């Protein structure tokens, strides 16, 4: 029931924001903040109450099921396991921060903005807990459409183009997934004497083997998810969408939307089509490695700060693909960790880029430089997250990448070695950020920009604590997801 509450708080909060904003802009912001904090506290309170069960790595922690459209076997089925819980936690944390970082940035149509923001969050939350494929698809679209508006209305200069591109790419994937869902639905119905259902647990019993049908259905799912991930060569929507979106949009895109792709692979592709996905595992790993290297090369060349960070996401998500298709427990644990830490670290970098843009009105790193003098605190914060993104131990990303590479190395040493070379490239682009933005002589002729404000301080401090905690004591996360991971790795 708590899941329903969480999603409905966000949905109702979004509508409330829109209504309140007609009267009072400030009240609208507070409504949004209260809604996301409430949605954040719910899973935490629940966690505190149920710690032992969660820590033990039990599989299904919450299961809520009512009939929705029984004629077609569609149910309103929400369930949460360790993986879902971790993702929900990340969603709600980044949700709070997204509201906070749009506090001053959004000046037009505030109500509609927060409506879209909260609905996207609700969609993402729903994606992580929906256990009915029809419902899953529904949430998949719920998170997509408001995101489109976020980019298209509050984006930067080239926002239309970016928004269309984002929409077309994701929608193409979504439609392929819909086809696959339907195909699965019918095949299952025929196999189980007319028991047509969209329920995830029922569909798990579908026997598909490794025939051409299974391959095609699997590809439908996989393409939808790897577009979101994104995988090279399906990544090209990402830099545009990330760089044009408002700060909160970039934060949610990088921190959460990309994760739905990885989550989908772990939750649906591998368990539903174990044989078919094993048969393409090597290719998927190869594409993951290509993504690591290619994303890093592109990131180094960029001069637009947000675009640069966007390409680093391509590189980091390559690790996810590599780890998932290694089919090793260690690599999968690393993948879950990577989802968390990438959400935190790249999200933080986007927030930083947003702060810089707010102060300097540019995203071009050639026009920045020497900002450490004016903003030592922001420089230090940037250093933390730049180091996180190049995989410095002590910070979470290292644990994730280390485990992924260690797991992948057992399967394919060559690919793992090339991926490790990506670590050198990641140092190249990460240091470039520091060098271009914070080092050197200060360039702005006007008054030096102000350092971090208290509101920004809260955002960055919570992200910093999160990334350091994940780097030094990641064990709780591993324990929580161990049940899921063991099940998937056994396939």
């Amino acid at each position, binding site marked *: 029931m708590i899941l329903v509450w969480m999603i409905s708080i966000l949905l109702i909060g979004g509508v409330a924001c829109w209504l309140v904003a007609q009267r009072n802009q400030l009240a609208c912001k507070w409504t949004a903040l209260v809604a996301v904090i409430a949605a954040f506290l719910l899973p935490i309170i629940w966690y505190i109450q149920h710690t032992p069960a969660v820590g033990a790595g039990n599989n299904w922690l919450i299961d809520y099921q009512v009939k929705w459209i029984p004629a077609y076997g569609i149910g309103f089925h929400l369930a949460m396991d360790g993986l879902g819980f971790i993702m929900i936690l990340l969603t709600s944390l980044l949700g709070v921060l997204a509201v906070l970082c749009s506090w001053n940035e959004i000046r037009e149509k505030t109500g509609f903005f927060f409506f879209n923001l909260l609905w996207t969050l609700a969609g993402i939350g729903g994606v992580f807990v929906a256990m009915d494929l029809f419902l899953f698809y529904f949430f998949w679209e719920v998170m997509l459409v408001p995101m489109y508006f976020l980019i298209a209305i509050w984006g930067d200069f080239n926002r239309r183009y970016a928004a269309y591109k984002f929409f077309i790419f994701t929608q193409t994937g979504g439609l392929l997934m819909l086809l696959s869902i339907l195909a699965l639905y019918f095949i299952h119905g025929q196999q189980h004497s007319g028991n047509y259902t969209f329920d995830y647990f029922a569909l798990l019993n579908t026997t598909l083997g490794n025939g051409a049908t299974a391959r095609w259905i699997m590809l439908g799912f996989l393409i939808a998810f790897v577009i979101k991930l994104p995988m090279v060569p399906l990544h090209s929507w990402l830099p545009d969408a990330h760089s044009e979106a408002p700060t909160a949009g970039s934060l949610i895109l990088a921190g959460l939307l990309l994760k739905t792709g990885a989550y989908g692979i772990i939750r649906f592709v591998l368990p539903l089509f174990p044989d078919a996905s094993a048969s393409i595992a090597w290719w998927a790993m190869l594409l993951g490695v290509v993504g690591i290297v290619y994303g890093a090369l592109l990131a180094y060349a960029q001069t637009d700060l947000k675009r640069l960070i966007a390409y680093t996401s391509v590189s980091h998500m390559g690790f996810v693909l590599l780890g998932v298709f290694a089919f090793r427990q260690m690599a999968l644990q690393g993948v879950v960790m990577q989802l968390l830490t990438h959400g935190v670290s790249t999200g933080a970098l986007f927030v930083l880029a947003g702060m810089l843009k707010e102060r300097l009105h540019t995203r071009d790193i050639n026009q920045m430089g*020497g900002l450490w003098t004016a903003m030592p605190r922001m420089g230090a914060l940037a250093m933390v997250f730049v180091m996180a993104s190049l995989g410095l131990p002590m910070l979470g990303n*290292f644990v994730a990448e280390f485990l992924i590479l260690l797991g992948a190395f057992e399967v394919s040493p060559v690919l793992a070695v090339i991926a*490790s070379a990506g670590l050198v490239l990641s140092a190249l682009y990460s240091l470039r950020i520091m060098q271009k933005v914070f080092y050197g002589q200060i360039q702005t002729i006007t008054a030096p920009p102000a350092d971090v404000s208290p509101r920004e301080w809260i955002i960055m401090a919570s992200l910093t604590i999160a990334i350091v905690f994940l780097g030094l004591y990641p064990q709780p996360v591993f324990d929580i997801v161990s049940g899921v991971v063991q099940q998937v790795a056994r396939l």
Partner: protein
Amino acid sequence: MNQLLAYIPAFPLLGFILLSLFGRKLTNPVIAIIGAGTVCLAAITTIVLGVSFLQTPPQGGAWQQLLWSWFRVGTLSVDLSLRIDALTLIFIFIITFVGALIHIYSTFFMRHDADYARFFASMNLFVCSMLLLVMADNLVLLYLGWEGVGLCSYLLIGFWYDVPSNCRAANKAFLITRIGDTALLIGLFLLFKELGSLNMGTILQQAPKHFVSGGASITLITILLMVGGMGKSAQLPLQTWLPDAMAGPSPVSALIHAATMVTAGVYLIARMNGLFQLSPVTMAIVAIVGAITLFVAGCSALAQTDIKRILAYSTISQIGYMFLALGVGAWSAAIFHFFTHAFFKALLFLAAGVIIEALHHEHNIFMMGGLRKRMPEVFLTFLAGAAALSALPLVSAGFYSKDAILWYSWSAAGGNPVLWLMALAGAFITALYSTRLMLVVFWGDMRSPVHEQPDKGMIIPLIVLAFFSVTAGFIEWPHNLFHLTLFSDQVQQVLPQTVMKENEPSEWLFQGIAALVTLSGVYLGYVLYYGKSGVRWQQSPGLSATRDFLFSGWKFDQLYNYVFVKPYLFLTRINKGDVIDKLYNAIAQGSMRLNSWFSVSQNGSLRMYIVGVLAGILFIITLQLLL
């Protein structure tokens, strides 16, 4: 005693946290007390531990303390767990003790800098990471420290970030060491795949059973570990970052780029001795790399004019000696050279820092001169350091450690005459450039005025270090002379004994040759540089090409620039717009084109539409009739 282990890295960590959170609000004296005090506390803790280690050695030769479990996933279990044995103890002693002296020195050296707190925060973090590196009981924690020191090195080289060349130097240092680090990481993966554990104890225990001596996999693993060590320790071909790293403040060069961090590679190889011994090929490579490096870097040091770059090249060269010793299997000699080198090289850098500050940031030695009279304390301490560097017989610490290496490079099981000759040539060059440095800086005419005399607080660390530069060697005498082996007795609890060749030649003879070579190097330096003669050599046209070649560090930078940097930049530049995106744009453009073709038919003429409808009807009817 076990419980004290965590305090050693915890004190500097505490300093780092305090300074990075509240550094901007604190006054300079408070910052100095936190910054230097925490390291001093760590040093005191170390000494307490060290004394009790020597009095009552722990069972199994090591103390261990588990802090918490870092991560346990599947069969991999990595703990944040510290371990101290004799080898580690030597390293943490140097790190905390020399580190504390350098911190005290820095409180005066950096007193005018606006970013006082940032400096000490980074230095404290460095000490903490370095301690974790050497105290780690598993390779992942070692890697944490390994990257942590890399980060601090990066932060401190780029400390004066408003000068672009400093940032470039910082980036270069980070990247080149990162290449080594990645090799090390791959080595860890391979080790885990083979042995299923990353705990050092387990690895060293299982390796002899699991690996065939000289087999392919063990050779590959050790080569990867060695490349990791080469990156951090600035060995050929990954040495180019260290001379540029001198862009950082002098205390940084003393602590990070001379005494501690750059010897991390030596530590790694010594720590993993069980693996390296299984692979004679790698051992030979380590020795050869060391020998070549010590020669190449020594030659480069001869041609430098920047006082800190001379010292930087000499650091590379001295670490080359350590690698050589490791490679021939003279484990304790390598560690002993690390031990003495830390003192005298830290001393030289700190003294250089004093000189540079006194002469208003003058780095060029040919603009110095005549400082013997004006700065007598600095002169005397520098002399002690330079004597140790050039290994003057009997009166300097450097003699005892370097002589052992020279001796083993011939007589140890892995040694051979070529290595010995290289090392001997290196010794000659070392003596030559040390003498050149001394004579040009301290004798002759004064070419720059001395602006201010150094503080007492900066001189005291120099004197302490000078004392150790002379006396640190006395704890280990050659076999034929007193045969005092305090140092190697301790080290050999951890490291294997050096295996000697059968029917070894007389050690006296080798000591004599080494001493003679050193003295002749000093004499040649005296001839060339005493009085005006140094200038003549410098201006000789025939030598200038060689000099430029050596000055640029054997053109390694240019080579890498052409082979790696330029192609990489070219590749990234041409692909800035992402070719794959072009493909999607082409698809989009294709549909636009189709749209424009089809929209020709939509011309707004009603008549055309009706003709179209009619044609359609006729077509359908015809179809109907035909079929």
